[in-house]
């Protein structure tokens, strides 16, 4: 794998078995994406119905009703995102963080962008009555919120995509270049269609539920008409997936594909097509929602679940070869680090060419004191000559000072207390008081 970076893995055990974490990831992520879909789709549908309400005012109240569901769904989308984020960090941290760093600017922009989007959506919702006569402005606020919100999945998709392809890690330069990777934009289309479908399906059930006084809440609208319209949206968006889906599959680098994955996908698509047929029947049937609605919900739920599993199968297959290289590299590194630790403990560390071989006291001096103290001239602190004058024959006094320096000299910086082992204090005091000015050369360099 020439040109493929091989980092070393985290050297700590996973908090649970990989299988359990993978299962948790698939399930928690589905819960998160469900509410993300409800949020994004809800915002788009609310805007669409508000635009429709410009000509047929009774739709305006429907748009507002939909916006109210977004308030709850968007907060659940955020808080339910943290769980899968935690699991993906644990399972795929090496891959995920690499993608995060390479798209870092956009990655951290998620925070202000989502905050701004949510604030605009609140403004949109709470200014509904106040801006009733200025619909253009009101729609612009909602539109700005929706646009910002749609930017966020793009960032996540770029990361989720880039993390699977270590061969691309050295290629990309910043977020925009990761967007150009083949799979990102098709997946974005796939996601937006899914959001619209999921939200419309939910709204059909929510607005047509028993116990909801539709006629009072939404005067001028007919429940079965709204049901039909919403289900037609589900039908259209899901049917379009039959185009978007193959595009996503075709643009995926093939090394993550497998027969298991394709078989899985085939089952998912078949269930989806069955759901489409039922949707078509339900949307063309008059009257309230029938039991068919729930069959559709279950079928599409299974489709989405299987898609989540497919995604996971692809991820595992795509990174397994790289993971094996990482594991081998990590083992090598670990052995080398252990060797160096043992050499250090035995007092025989390997020393590079041109490095210093010195007495123990000189080693301590070079490592600890030399940055501030020279032999004859003032650096940060006074030169050693003056120190020798003060502490000649009094190493204990010197050590006591080094451990807890007293009042600083006029015009000098205060010396910090130096923490080391007792033998090191002793060695460096001996070096300063007895060696440094009596040896022929202060330092000896080896070839």
């Amino acid at each position, binding site marked *: 794998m020439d040109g493929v970076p091989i980092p070393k893995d*985290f050297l700590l055990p996973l908090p649970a078995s990989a299988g359990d974490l993978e299962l948790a990831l698939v399930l928690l992520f589905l819960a998160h994406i469900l509410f993300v879909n409800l949020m994004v789709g809800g915002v788009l549908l609310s805007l669409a119905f508000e635009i429709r309400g410009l000509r047929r005012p009774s739709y305006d109240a429907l748009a507002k009703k939909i916006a109210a569901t977004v308030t709850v769904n968007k907060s659940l989308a955020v808080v339910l995102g943290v769980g899968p984020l935690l699991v993906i960090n*644990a399972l795929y941290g090496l891959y*995920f963080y690499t993608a995060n760093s390479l798209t870092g600017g956009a990655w951290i922009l998620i925070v202000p962008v989502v905050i701004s989007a949510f604030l605009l959506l609140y403004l949109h919702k709470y200014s509904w009555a106040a801006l009733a006569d200025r619909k253009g402005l009101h729609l612009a606020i909602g539109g700005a919120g929706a646009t910002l919100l749609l930017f966020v999945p793009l960032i996540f998709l770029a990361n989720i995509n880039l993390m699977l392809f270590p061969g691309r890690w050295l290629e990309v330069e*910043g977020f925009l270049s990761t967007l150009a990777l083949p799979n990102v934009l098709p997946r974005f289309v796939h996601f937006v269609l899914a959001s619209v479908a999921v939200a419309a399906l939910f709204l059909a059930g929510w607005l047509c539920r028993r116990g909801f006084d539709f006629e009072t809440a939404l005067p001028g609208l007919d429940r079965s008409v709204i049901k039909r319209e919403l289900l037609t949206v589900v039908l259209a968006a899901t049917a379009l997936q039959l185009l978007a889906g193959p595009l996503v599959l075709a643009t995926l680098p093939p090394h993550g594909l497998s027969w298991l994955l394709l078989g899985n996908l085939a089952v998912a698509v078949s269930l989806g097509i069955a759901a489409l047929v039922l949707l078509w029947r339900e949307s063309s049937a008059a009257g309230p929602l029938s039991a068919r609605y729930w069959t559709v919900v279950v079928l599409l739920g299974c489709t989405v679940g299987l898609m989540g599993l497919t995604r996971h199968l692809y991820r595992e297959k795509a990174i397994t070869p790289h993971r094996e290289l990482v594991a081998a590299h990590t083992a090598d590194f670990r052995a080398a*680090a252990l060797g160096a630790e043992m050499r250090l403990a035995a007092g025989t560390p390997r020393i590079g060419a041109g490095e210093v071989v010195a007495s123990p006291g000189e080693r301590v001096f070079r490592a600890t004191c030399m940055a501030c103290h020279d032999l004859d001239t003032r650096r940060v602190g006074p030169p050693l000559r003056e120190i020798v004058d003060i502490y000649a024959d009094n190493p204990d006094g010197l050590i006591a000072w080094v451990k807890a320096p007293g009042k600083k000299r006029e015009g000098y910086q205060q010396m910090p207390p*130096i923490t080391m082992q007792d033998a090191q204090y002793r060695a460096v005091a001996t070096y300063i008081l007895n060696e440094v000015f009596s040896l022929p050369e202060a330092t000896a360099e080896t070839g």
Partner: protein
Amino acid sequence: MDFPVFHLDFLGNRMLIALIAVLHVWINHAFAVGAMPLVTALEWWGYRSGDDRWDRLGYRVLTVCFVVTTTFGALTGVGIWLSTSLVNPYAIGSLIRIFFWAWFIEWLVFVTEVLCIMIYYLSWKPMARRKKAHIAVGVALSVASWVTMAIITAILGFMMDPGSWLARESFFSGVFNPIYLPQLAFRTPVAMIAAGWLALFLAYFFTRSEPDLRRRSVRFIALWSLAWLPAAVAGALWYWRAIPVWMAGNVPVALGTQRFAAWYDQLLTVLAAMVVVVFVTGVFGVVLPRRLPRVALLVPFALTLVLLGSFERVREFIRKPFVIGEYMYANGVRVADLPLLKEEGVLHHATYARVREVTDSNGVAAGAEVFRLSCTRCHTVSGVNSVTDRLGGLYGPGAWDRDTVKYYLVGMHTARPFMPPFPGTDREAGALADYLVDLQRAPRPALGAQDVGARPGAAGPIGGGEEG
């Protein structure tokens, strides 16, 4: 070392996390932990006195809290994760493996809290005829918010107890460390007071046309804040006095440093300032509610932010030089890997180094790489905690001596116990000194992988500027 290096050369990477985290803590304390009981109290007072205006005021204050916590509050919480994964990925990836279940529990608690606030806020009007039940929801939410804080403070304490997970592997020894209870005793009243000043500020806007309600509400809320003041003083002093005791048992090296002493004194000053301001404005608000100037309301509110921020800093400070006690240094180098890196070099073992070997002619370029790999988690070139400022403080504005800088780099962890040891060979220390001395001559920012990618040997800028 194992990740492309994200770097913000002006703000500084740690400052990015600090800004997000302090904003999050402050919103959590003022707008949630403190505000929920205060709003419930306003609602209850309206119910008891039969005066609907209190109910409306409570709802308006709650609306602001709802909007702020579900936008800034929630997203800064997520932002802590997003930023730590950029700033120190190897550290956060390791921490997640250690503290996964603690964070998982924390997440479940957060989900509960979000559900609670949704229910309380969105059911305010639908439950208008069942006030008693709704007030009970408010009480439950207040308790849940406080429990959230108590659990998360425990988890923070657990994580801040360096080495306990290694040595004892005991969750509870970490949770019930000596600063847990003082910390909780401090955070609780500060949250209540912060919420009081927030509500006072808001009440000014919401009662513009109702001078009578303004007078009463200012008095009510000022009394609320004053009532919590003695507890805040006691809690803060307890916490303040517990810090050295706790540190002595955990990080002996840090205790002696002058920077800690300075910070410790400064903290007491901030504390005293907060007490005085809260007391004076509070008494003023109770006695002369009509005369209290609006700007006076912002000062104590801002001071609570400063105070919380100062106390959050202690957690960062005492960790040093580690990010995970005894296991990993702040720059992401494992303690156990240090001997190997000192023998063979950080450039040799980094996944994304643009220069692999220090030669006689590439000192500055190699040094720039060593800097990016070993120093940029905490230092910038020209922004917050700038490396040139730090060296300038030591060696002055005159041209620095390359060898002096090199010796300083090799030994600084002994004189500056909060610094990690230099994680490379002698030649790499020399190259880093070459780079730093060159930076003094020709300042230019260091760029991160988010801008220039991670390609080794890329023709792109090295350390932000062409070499030589």
